[in-house]
């Protein structure tokens, strides 16, 4: 033992350098490079206002992507998040429009609770279809994606669903536009959600189970872990994160339509993958995910501020980013 210990101490400097996980660092390096690039293209870019603006706008995708980190870490995939957001937001607005509770504060509080439960229920449905129904998560959530989207279209009758009570609107608006200790509330939200998520993933029994289930379901099963329950809870966490995104989304415009949240599942998955989480499960990186969401929003912002590339190509660029991220991730894996 003692001999081993000494050998370890002597070799520490070399092994420490060698053991820095390139995959964990890569997204932050990419973020730094983007910031430099942005500063070079437009001097306004690096200003606090612009960056705060970018971060605020990334809030929806970032928070959804935190949930996606759990689902993907446990070896599953959820394609329904964009539709789920539209559906839950529509339900929430319709609930507030119903006028069931007269007092606007109470009404809003009830609507918040309602949205959280609706999101959790949507996540539970995804989880049950995948685990109890034994359907590939790709197919299961492709199905629920259609279901949630279709229900939204039906609820809005093809048009828009708008929050009617101006009273509630006035109370609710600051949740997106206001700030707390000088930080815009959406940014505070991202930080709080990510802190909680990081704690759950890295410091709790459940988080350890997620990683085990995602790395190797058989090992997890043979270790006495209830694999299906862990997977289902990950889907519920995803639903809760969508609900939190809804709570930020509704005060922003006060309305939803059939096209709300379209392709956000792509952005969320891109953020997760860019952040260094392995798509095949087993390695979740919550802070990397947030970094990935910022990168996506920054790229769009740089394109807007610069004049080399048309902003209509944003989708193309984001699509390319996910492919490049996968290639980088794989080449880093091979090296280590």
């Amino acid at each position, binding site marked *: 033992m003692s001999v081993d210990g000494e050998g370890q101490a002597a070799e520490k400097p070399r092994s420490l350098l060698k053991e820095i996980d390139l995959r964990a660092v890569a997204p932050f390096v990419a973020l730094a490079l983007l910031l430099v690039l942005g500063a070079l293209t437009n001097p306004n870019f690096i200003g606090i206002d612009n960056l705060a603006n970018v971060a605020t706008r990334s809030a929806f995708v970032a928070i959804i992507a935190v949930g996606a980190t759990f689902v993907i870490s446990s070896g599953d995939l959820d394609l329904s998040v964009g539709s789920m957001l539209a559906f839950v937001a529509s339900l929430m607005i319709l609930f507030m429009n119903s006028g069931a509770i007269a007092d606007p504060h109470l009404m809003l509080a009830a609507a918040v609770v309602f949205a959280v439960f609706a999101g959790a229920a949507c996540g539970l449905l995804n989880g049950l279809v995948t685990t109890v129904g034994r359907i590939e998560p790709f197919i299961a959530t492709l199905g629920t994606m259609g279901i949630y989207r279709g229900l939204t279209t039906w609820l809005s009758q093809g048009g828009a669903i708008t929050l009617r009570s101006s009273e509630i609107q006035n109370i609710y608006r600051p949740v997106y536009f206001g700030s707390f200790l000088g930080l815009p509330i959406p940014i505070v939200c991202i930080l709080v959600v990510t802190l909680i998520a990081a704690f759950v993933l890295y410091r709790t029994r459940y*988080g350890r189970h997620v990683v085990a289930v995602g790395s*190797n379901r058989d*090992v997890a099963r043979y270790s006495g*872990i209830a694999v299906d329950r862990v997977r289902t809870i990950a889907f519920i966490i995803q639903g809760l994160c969508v609900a939190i995104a809804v709570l930020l989304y509704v005060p922003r415009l006060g309305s939803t339509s059939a096209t709300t949240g379209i392709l956000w599942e792509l952005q969320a998955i891109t953020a997760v993958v860019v952040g260094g989480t392995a798509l095949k499960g087993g390695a979740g990186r919550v802070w990397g995910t947030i970094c990935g969401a910022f990168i996506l929003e920054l790229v769009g912002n740089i394109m807007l501020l610069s004049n080399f590339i048309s902003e209509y190509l944003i989708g193309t660029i984001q699509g390319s980013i996910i492919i490049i991220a996968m290639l980088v991730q794989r080449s880093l894996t091979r090296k280590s």
Partner: protein
Amino acid sequence: METSAEVKRTPVLAARRISKSFNGVQVLFSVNFDLLPGEIHALVGENGAGKSTFVKIMSGFEQPSSGEILLDGKPVRLPANGQAEHLGIVIIHQEFNLAEHLTVTESLFLGREITRFGVLDRKRMRAETRRALDLLGSRIDENAMISSLPVADRQMVEIAKAISKDARVIFMDEPTAVLSKEESGVLFEQVRKLRDQGTSFVFVSHKLDEVLELTDRVTVLRDGQWVKTAPTSMLDGESIAQLMVGRELSSLYPAKREPDVDEEIVLSARGITTGFVRDASFDVRKGEVIGFSGLIGSGRTELMEAVAGLRPRHSGEVTIKGINMSSGDAHAANRAGLAYMTKDRKSKGLLLGSRMAVNLTLQSLDQHGKFGYLSPKSEANALARAMRRFDIRVRDGRVVAGRMSGGNQQKLMLAKVMETEPEIIIIDEPTRGIDVGTKQQIYHFISALARAGKSIVVVSSELQEVIGLCTRVVVMREGRIVGWLEGDEINEQEIMRYSAGLKKVAG
């Protein structure tokens, strides 16, 4: 010694001083082998004697570390990945290589379809398939879907496939493992027919009765060494079994200690039946080391997984320390004090991409914090304790499990299971693929646990291990418990007789 008549014929395939090492572990030691034209040659040996490796080398799937292979008396280097089929050397694998949704004809010509002007020539392929099946005297419809065929017919299709490739040498690895007695009989008849037409067979089997019935000569391997080649007519089941095992017991094992007859029964399994296991019953006493022996595929792992709740059982009862366990509830069995340690450490035992601490505590996270919170300090303490207790030697505690040696992985897995503080530990293949020094350590851990009052079930395909460790040995064969051995009865010949089906307890 070979007779003079045999020496005159040139072997179609021969091995000269073939050796093979994997990662510095030598598994074959200078093996010689001759396969004559038109003979059925049995290759027998214990599990781990090197049969599979030898077959892989002789069919080109592995290259020998040294030695040479002769084809028709001329040295060759067999091409890899099944390309040796072009030389007429075909291997029929234990698991079938047939795609279920193809027809018989399509599977026969998979990857070497006959075309005319770039279009599949179905007519010719069908005719050729019919010819191959007729040659075997088989009535299988060439247009039938593989999925509709019984296993015996699928085996026949594999052989027809070999024939249609003009095979001169056919390796059959446990071809009758999935066949009934009648189906085996039909297969043997066809094999003999082909032999009479000049095809040579290498027949790898554990079933000594079949070896005696079918083959012309027998080659015995033991611990990677060639032991004997002799005409089958000069041998009987007993003598083959003796050649396969005959080896001395070393001081690898700690002294055995019999539990008192009136010790309480901590684990009781009654009439366990699963998909394969039939009506298996056994009891384990406190402080006992009981062994489960048998050939690979005899149902030992399936039985143990059913007992541990990792696999549902169709019928039967499991009682742990007086508590009745419901079927398929691994968590309850674990809580009641039973732990199962898998033989498959790479795919079922350890998270290869995770560090030691994560693996160690995975099964016992409840101990490391309250309300689901995990205390890194508590986990680190557990790791330090386990590394000391099980002598896990790594340079750096942060190493991922996949980079550790097999022996250290095995110790880590044992440590992981012991973290749950079980009273009964089922250890499936305790020393698979690890070096002798670590083996000895693991044997001593097992013995020490038994002395501390734990009960241990050792499932092992290594006869020596079961003999050296256990005070009672159960032998399984084809999903059933066929033998119970105690005291002096626990020896290799006796176990081999039961597991090869030469002997069976009444009832």
